[in-house]
């Protein structure tokens, strides 16, 4: 059980990192395109949520396979 919990937690943290990176990338892109603060940061939140949801279930099985 603890081993499994750790894997999920690790997947969550790594997914979090990927999602944060995606959101930052979005902020940079939106800034470069000249969008205002709301669009930039609002969009970044949405990108962060979706990116986290996408990456977490991908990373879990991958980590389990490696361990």
């Amino acid at each position, binding site marked *: 059980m603890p081993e499994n919990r750790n894997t999920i937690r690790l997947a969550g943290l790594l997914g979090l990192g990927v999602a944060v990176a995606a959101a930052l990338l979005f902020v940079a892109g939106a800034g470069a395109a000249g969008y205002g603060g709301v669009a930039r940061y609002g969009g970044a939140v949405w990108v962060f949520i*979706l990116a986290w*949801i996408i990456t977490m279930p991908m990373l879990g099985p991958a980590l389990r396979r490696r361990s």
Partner: protein
Amino acid sequence: MTSEPQIHDVGYEVGTETLTLQVGGMSCASCVSAIETAVRNLPGVASGTVTLATGMAAISYYPGLVTPAQIKHAIRDLGYEAAEKLEGAAALDRERQARRREIRRQGLWMLVAWPLALLVMVGTFQDVWILPRFVPAWLGNRILLFALTTPIVFGPGWQFFVNSFRGLRHGVTDMNLLYATGIGAAYLIAVINTFWPEAGFGGPEATFYEAAALLTAFIVLGRYLEALTRGRASEAIRKLMSLQPKVARVWRGDREVEIPADEVEVGEIVFVRPGEQIPVDGVVTQGYSAVDQSMLTGESMPVEKREGDEVIGGTLNKTGAFRFRATKVGRDTALAQIITLVEDAQASRAPIQKLADLVAGKFIFWVHVLALAVFLFWFFLGYTRFFDPATRLMLTPYGLGAIGVFGFALLISVAVLVISCPCAVGMATPSAMMAGTGKAAEHGILFKGADAIERASRLTTVVFDKTGTLTRGEPSVTDVRPASGWTESAVLALAAAAEVNSEHPLGEAIVRGARERGLAVPEARDFAAIPGRGVEAVADGRAVLLGNRRLMQERGVDLAAVEREAEALERDGKTVMFMAADGRPAGLIAVADTLKGHSAEAIRILHRLGLQVAMITGDNRRTAEAIARQVGIDRVLAEVLPQDKAREVASLQGQGRRVAMVGDGINDAPALAQADVGMAIGSGTDVAKETGHVVLIKDDLRDVVSAIEVARATMRKVRQNLFWAFIYNTVTIPFAAGVLYPWSRQVVSPELAAFLMAISSLTVTLNTTLLKRFVPSLHRGSRPGRLPSVMAPVARGEA
């Protein structure tokens, strides 16, 4: 951690145990996927299969590494109910309670969500069309809309947030997450635009309260409908379970006592009075009565029962009182066995369903990927190129006005999430399979798994075992040919007299044949059996010799007068016995294994269905071909030893044929197992011990036809359901993603997406319901039973 294959490699076996759980609160395929993922993620779980339609989870685990409590905890942690499966009435009660609880819960949320959501909708559109005449302006106040929407999101909608959070904690994403993100995003934008209109989310023109409210209401409606449907899907089992009697009156000590029916022991004498239900299976030992078996067979007339007759638990005694000896109790009763078989079949998963579940499970992931891609496209490219302030929400007069880039891209992204819900895909196969297995059980056909239905629908060849399947399996007199000066009756009577003490099957057939014709069999004396030849005796004052050609030749009987007729009968596959009286030929008696009733009719219909029909037998080719000619079979596999039957079936499969083997399940078990579909026929009350994939309770070959017809109808329904579910997603996702927007200037609102999603599930559900009206061709025009008539043949004593 050391894995099972590694342990196998070093020569040890790993013992597993199976845990069967009743899981409550599932609504679609993604729930199945989420639970399976969470359970399989537990260390110590070897495999896990969850079935949406029955709400059952079968989990194989290694004791010591994980406990049932931990497995249940993992499922509960996702927001579902999990309890170990109970047997019989207790299972029925628990399942019914859980279903009622879910229906009540979602019904309550409907009562909260719908009136408020309709108010929010009317309030939002109060300045549109003719509504200003009827709807007061204050109802469109954004603060009021906020006040009306908030209880919907945090009441009925809260379950989706909680469940998606629980899922994420276990590393799984499910439909709840789609709902939560959809509802949450719509509500959040509306709140921001209400309290901070200058924030750039579209301002006062883009308060999507009605989107959040109606989205929640439609999803709850979908859940409510699914809870209702799932309950009805297991109707066949519920009806069978409701037939299980509660009490029995037995003789214990020196008096009659009333005890619970499940406490009756084998061998006990059970008393049944008029109007009482028969508690267990047994054999009548005293008394006479008529038993109403209509609840099981659909027969309108009660069936007479007297000493020695079999009675079946669950049927109703009508006129007289009788007592019987219990032969099968508890789990061994025919009714209990049938319930178990139907339950197992409904809990199993067809290959096509596994594919659908896999697609539905992966779908969630790809939907989020698509939602992200759509968002990025409309944010960076689409909005600046195509956005028009005159944009309207599809099928509404509601304009988006000055919605900003973020609000616009988010709206489309949320619509994609909601419209992509694969609920209909998840329900398509299991609901049809449950209806199909239930329908088959009504006709005495028990499929042991959904995979058997799928394979039975694709058969190309049906192979029948001859003896005991196509034929009665016991010889009987077919022809009596008297010699000159003799009559048929005289020949048969004298032959019966000579054979009356015989234990040889041919002799028994002759004695039975004489009795069936009502002949008086004279006394015989000086009886002697001549091994491998026949018998001799003195009867009616004559020296009777009865046997084969060799016997006659050895005793010098001249057969010239009857030889031609004997050869003609032998060409038809019959066994000819010669009879001589006082040293002169008296006649011939032909004995053969006769065809069962309806054999020819069943094979004719199988041909009409486009199937090749073959017969397999250990008999010589001449006998086999004679039977095949009578019944209309086009391929004969003769002189095949019992152990080689499976090889013959495999050989047909090697030619690319999909083969069903129909046998009595006794000496052809390997062939039944080898076939794509093994059908054990005429099993009677011993349904559970039968080999094969399909058990036909009646000894009626026409049920082979019905089984194939039901299987084909079920798979037709599965394909239709999958078509409706997938076509819906395929067609609507591009709409939701805004593919047509550059030309139409309309976008799909989240509430329209939720409505379409509910319609999709409803279409699949209604389409499945149509299967309940299916009647196999041979039963059309007959009165259907009031309840599943799986026991019909048993009760009629045919099995």
